């Protein structure tokens, strides 16, 4: 069971690295926001699984909940900021 959790956390770090390509290459600013948002929500799960790995889930669950709320609020605020500008071209 222990080694399986380690395997899952390693595969999750690989899954988190994949959207970085979209953040770097994304033609529009919203693709970059999308990639960053995707990384944010995936990190919540990585925190939970690391909590399971370190046998102290009660602390990591609080951290994951706070991080999920923060990433949600930040994606809302950034979306609101960008919705006021008009396309320049």
């Amino acid at each position, binding site marked *: *069971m222990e080694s*399986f*959790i380690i395997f*899952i956390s390693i*595969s*999750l770090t690989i*899954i*988190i690295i*994949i*959207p970085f*390509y*979209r953040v770097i290459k994304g*033609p*529009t600013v*919203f*693709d970059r*926001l*999308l*990639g960053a*948002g*995707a990384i944010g*929500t*995936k990190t*919540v*799960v990585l925190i*939970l*699984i690391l909590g*399971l790995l370190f046998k102290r*889930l*009660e602390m990591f*669950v*609080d951290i*994951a*909940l706070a991080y*999920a*709320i923060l990433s*949600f609020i930040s*994606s*809302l605020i950034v*979306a*609101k900021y*960008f*919705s006021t*500008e*008009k*396309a320049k071209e």
Partner: protein
Amino acid sequence: MSEVKDLLTILFLLLGAFFMLIGSIGVIRLPDFFTRSHATSKSDTLGIMLIVVGLICHEGLVLNSLKLMIIFVFIALANPVGSHALARAAFKFGIKPWFKKEEKDQA
């Protein structure tokens, strides 16, 4: 009983990781912003919910499971709303949805 618990945990964690992988590949391969927001808002949410259910199975009925259920409900509500806000902002910004018959790939 603990074998069944471990089996359930492993099954849910694998399924969740599989759907999150699909979400990540979707973010990369899909042609346009709006199709990409499909990938993040839907398959990511499903992946997270499966993994949280797997953790709840592993923990049993303790306080941690209650907090995990709170995270489950919050992610189920927050992720689609965040993606909708982003898609609405992109549409107001002036990004045209991608159509199959267009020759040039604008995204």
